[in-house]
Every structure is written in C-alpha cells, then in structure tokens.
C-alpha cells in the first residue's frame, strides 16, 4: 500500500501530506520517493545526468563544463592517486591489499556498514584505516592526498551504478535514519538544512552559485572546485557547507557525517559514479 501510495501521489501533495508510514523506516520506499521527486521536478534532465550537479541545471554552465572536461583539472589528482596506489607502504603492502578487487572499481559500494563495529565505513575512513593498519600515519580528510586517493578509486568506478547496501542489522537502519535526519535538520544561524538548498531550490542561485540537486550529489566526489582552485573530498564539502550556514563544523568523519553520506549515497542507488568531478 505504501509504494502504491507514493507512486500514485503527486509529489507536492505527497510532500505535504502527513507521514502515514509507521514509524519503522523504509529505505526502499524512501529511495523511490526521493528519486521520483527529482525526476518530476526536472523532467528534462536525463536520469543519469543528475550526477552532474549544477551542470545539469543550466545550459551555459553545461557548455563550460564540457570545455573543462576535455582536459579536466582533476587529472593530476587521478594520476597522483594512481602512483600512491602503486607505491607500497614501508611494510611492503599497498592500498590494494585493503580492498576487494585491489581497490579497483569498488568505490560504488562505499559507504558500507561494518556489522562488527556496528557503524558506517566511508571510503575516506577505510583508506585511513588501511594506512594505520599498515603502520602509516593517517592523512587529513580535507587535504590533497586523501582527495588523490579517492579521485583515483572513483575514476576506476566511473559508470558503475551506485550500489549501497543496508544489511538487516537494526544498527544499519538506525545509521541510515540518523543520516536522513541530519540531511533535513536546519542548522546554523542562517537556519538552513541540506534540504533547504538541495531539495527545495536546486537549479536556483544562492549568491553566485547554482545549487545542485541532492540526487546523485555524492556520485561525483571528490570534486575539483574552481572556487577552491583545488581538490575537495566529501569531508571538505560537508564542513564548508556547515560553515556557509554559520554552523560550527564537526570533526571530519564524525558519525553524523558518515551516516549522512550513507543516506545520501543509498538514495542515489542506480545512478552512475561520475567522480572525480569538476565543479564551479
């Protein structure tokens, strides 16, 4: 009855109607409703183009993006990442030893849920844990080394569909719900939530930038932003979004951010990985 309900309802009506669903979270229905909302809101945008953020919202931007994609500025990050993958740690092991399939073409399965630890493991966290497990110091989650590693891993997964799984472990469902709550909760003195910008007004301007739709927003990570004239990891993007609403950012890879990435990636299941991405 729930899926029929969400399919039949017009998106605006469904949005305002009080939640009939029992309190038990239903990620499958969430994901359908989430994707339907954006597909209805932007009928002219091709399904897989949602991963191109602002570039699928504005023709002028799209042309500039195509121009940049001929020889994109994140090219250096991918190559540095490839070199890092090939350089063994002091103990002779490499990043490939920490990941399935040597870390090639696996990005679309991250974040995963670790049932031993009972927590979400994001790609950035897994990379630092791999370093620590091999006696190396962890990298900053905001700086270029982490961006190069995730850029290379994303590059090897390009085109693969996002494939995030929520195991039947109740803690996984709770992490998913925490991520969803964080996404919709207003914060900072400007009193914005992620949804205020990326659900209510994608395609519109906020100051000088055109807002990306929330659907597929993780698929392009990490991104080279002209604004930063450098690479940015998912962690850096979450922290800067916080400070732009005048909320004090939390520690990178805090549980809130891990759950948020879990939720945002799960609802984008089925959309292709397009990282690393170039952005305004």
């Amino acid at each position, binding site marked *: 009855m729930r899926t029929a309900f969400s399919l039949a309802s017009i998106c605006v009506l469904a949005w305002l109607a009080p939640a009939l669903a029992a309190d038990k979270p239903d990620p499958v229905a969430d994901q359908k409703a989430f994707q339907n909302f954006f597909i209805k809101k932007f009928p002219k945008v091709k399904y897989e183009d949602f991963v191109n953020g602002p570039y699928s919202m504005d023709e002028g931007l799209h042309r*500039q993006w195509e*121009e940049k994609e001929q020889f994109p500025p994140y090219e250096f990050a991918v190559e540095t990442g490839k070199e890092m993958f090939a350089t063994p740690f002091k103990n002779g092991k490499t990043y490939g030893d920490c990941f399935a399939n040597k870390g090639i073409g696996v990005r679309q399965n991250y974040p995963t849920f670790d049932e031993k630890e009972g927590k979400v493991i994001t790609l950035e966290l897994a990379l630092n844990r791999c370093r620590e497990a091999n006696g190396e110091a962890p990298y900053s989650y905001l700086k270029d080394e982490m961006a190069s590693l995730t850029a290379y891993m994303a590059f090897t997964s390009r085109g693969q569909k996002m494939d995030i799984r929520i195991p039947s472990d109740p803690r996984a469902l709770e992490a998913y719900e925490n991520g969803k709550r964080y996404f919709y909760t207003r914060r900072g003195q400007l009193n914005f939530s992620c949804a205020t910008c990326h659900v209510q007004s994608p395609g519109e301007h906020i*100051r000088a930038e055109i807002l990306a739709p929330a659907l597929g927003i993780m698929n392009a990570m990490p991104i080279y932003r002209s604004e930063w*004239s450098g690479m940015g990891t998912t962690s850096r993007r979450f922290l800067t979004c916080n*400070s*732009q609403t*005048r909320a004090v*950012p939390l520690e990178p890879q805090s549980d809130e951010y891990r759950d948020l990435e879990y939720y945002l990636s799960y609802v984008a299941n089925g959309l292709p990985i397009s990282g690393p991405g170039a952005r*305004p």
Partner: protein
Amino acid sequence: MSLSSDRHSMTRRLVLQGAGAVALFGLGNIPFAPALAAANDKYPEDAFKQKSDADAIKALYGKTAEASDKVKLDAPEIAENGAVVPIAVTTTLTEVSSISFLVSENPNALAASYVIPAGTVPAVANRLKMAKTCNVIAIVESGGKLYSATKEVKVTVGGCGG
C-alpha cells in the same frame, strides 16, 4: 591553506560586493620581476605591464585593431567562476602570425599572447582569470594587420579569489 569559516565567508562577501576586488587592486601595479630573456622570441614584458587594453595592444603590436566578423571569439555569457573561464578563438583569416587575448578590466589587460608560426592552425583555446564582469577581446594579426572580436563576459564570483 587554513579554511577558517569567517575568513572564507568574509572574503566571499567582500568579493561579491566588489569592494574587496577594488581594495586589492588599489595596491597599484606591482612591478613583475624582470623575466629572464626567453630562448627564442622575446617575452613582451612591457605589453603585460600595461593597464588598459588599448595600451597593451599598442605596446604589443604598435598599431590598432579593427573589429572583424572573421574573428570568432567563443566565451561564456556568465562565467561559472572567474578563476577558470574557458575562452577560445578561431578565424578564417589567412597568414595569421599572432593571436592575443585581453581582459579589459583585469589589473593588466593583456592575459595571453600566442606566436603562430606558418603551418599552425590559427585557433587557440585556453582558460583565463577574470576579476569582474567586463569585455574579453581577441586579437588576430593577419598579413600584418590587426583584427579583433569583443564579447562581454559576466563574472559573479571574482576570479582572483583569495
């Protein structure tokens, strides 16, 4: 580069009001370190120091350009970010020996100047910085005469960042 949020939002506001951009450039024209003489063609040091596009063109070519529809300038209506503005030029003119790009309201108008030897296709694409909304001018030297195309490019986020 520490990313303290106050500096970040403060700079963005300043840049957006344009005040910051003006204040920065009010520092006057910082003399460039004298460039080492390049192996072959000489670097047009003086042209790159000129403020206005007219002075830069005069310093570079010693003559003025006339607008021509044979020079096709490809630049965006609104730059996504002033730091990376994709600009390209193609021309049907022949015997092209030089192509230059000028950004009229940058502190120094001349952005780039290319020597086009015989046998090279008269077309160039590059990515330039623009301080604010202004005219982008492409100059093509063909058969010893100068032809130009001009287009206004709107810039919302100043390209010189900070």
